[in-house]
């Protein structure tokens, strides 16, 4: 009897703890900030006089790149093998030929082995690629492969979510989910990534795209190449 009196409150506490923990996981509160500075909007290829841009507060991680890379490797080893297109696939990838510059007047190259680079003097240096993500998955990382031998130039890549009501026309609600800044790279091939703050895919309401942003002035060519972009999610 005594045991029963103790065990019932304990069970209740466990239940409450489990509900609380799962509720926290499911709710996944997103923290936003707004980009209103015309200079910052223009740097992203957006209309400086257009609507402000909503951004998820970037995830903070003070660990070294080596430490974070070790964590990534451990995670991928746990994931095991994945059948092509099957349920074990936790990623979607785009590369050069998937990108479209933001006007038909852009000057660019895709190279023999499919990278994306601009030509000097291009009137447009921003390019978008739609990326198809699986419904209801939690996004984890934005991965970017580049080749960069110019210490003063680079290419940044950001992931955007564009949402509208499911069945009616309306202005789009755009959120910057993550950005990988590649401006300081100059050592040739590079792999960088950003952790995506809590975001679940909702294809009923939203679409997703990645934007390549080549730096200015546009006086370089193949020195800066975007090779591949991948979005990785939690199965």
């Amino acid at each position: 009897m005594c045991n029963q009196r103790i065990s019932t409150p304990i069970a209740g506490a466990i239940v409450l703890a489990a509900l609380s923990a799962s509720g926290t996981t499911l709710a996944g509160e997103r923290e936003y900030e707004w980009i209103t500075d015309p200079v910052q909007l223009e740097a992203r290829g957006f209309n400086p006089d257009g609507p402000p841009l909503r951004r998820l507060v970037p995830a903070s991680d003070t660990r070294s790149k080596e430490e974070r890379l070790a964590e990534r490797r451990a995670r991928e080893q746990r994931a095991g093998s994945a059948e092509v297109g099957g349920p074990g696939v936790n990623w979607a990838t785009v590369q050069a030929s998937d990108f479209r510059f933001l006007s038909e007047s852009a000057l660019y190259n895709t190279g023999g082995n499919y990278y994306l680079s601009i030509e000097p003097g291009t009137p447009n240096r921003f390019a978008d690629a739609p990326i198809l993500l699986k419904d209801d998955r939690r996004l984890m990382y934005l991965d970017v492969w580049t080749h960069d031998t110019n210490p003063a130039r680079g290419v940044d890549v950001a992931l955007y979510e564009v949402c509208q009501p499911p069945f009616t026309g309306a202005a789009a609600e755009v959120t910057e989910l993550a950005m990988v800044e590649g401006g300081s790279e100059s050592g040739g091939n590079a792999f960088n990534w950003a952790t995506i703050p809590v975001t679940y895919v909702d294809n009923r309401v939203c679409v997703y795209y990645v934007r390549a942003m080549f730096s200015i002035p546009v006086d370089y060519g193949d020195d800066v190449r975007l090779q591949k972009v991948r979005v990785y999610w939690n199965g």
Partner: protein
Amino acid sequence: MTLAKPLMATVALALAAFTGTGLRADDIELRGTPAYNNMDYVGWVGTAADPSAHTAAYISNFDNSSSYDCANGGPGGSRLIRYPFMLPDLRQIHFVRIWGQKADLTADLDIRLRRSCTNFLHPVPPVMTTIGTTSVAEAPGYFSALIGVDSTEMPDNALCRYVVEVEMGSAASACAAYPGALRIMKIRVQSSLTDRIFRSAFREAF
């Protein structure tokens, strides 16, 4: 009374377990969005368009949505863009929905869902079939247009490829007076998997 408390605890624990693993835990290949079970959605931003020719002028910086804004400000230039897509076999296509913006003095939109099919092994030209159409006229501002699809339409990727075509008026006149006046913001294909459990995976032995 003796049984009631353990029973309640069991129910509560089961509830906790269900909540913890529930809505986010399904790991099937393509799952239904919560509250719209068995329906799957796939979509693209406007700039995913393939212009039919290099004369199709466009721009995309009106807002932040990566829309395709027709920029042929005078006569001439192609007005046809395409959104090719692929769905896995055995899916039933239900609807294609298009979001955009259309202001005064812009060209009307004709939107078509088509498929291009060939014979499996024989060298025959592709046969294009229009599956559904819709139009957007006048100046609705932000709009959402729908193409309904016959319930028998199921992808066969061995033979066919699907495409959403958007025609922005004719080359005889401007499609829009200014950038952003006529644009495609988003395309969404809604489908379901008819045999969700077995996926017709029982095969005949060769």
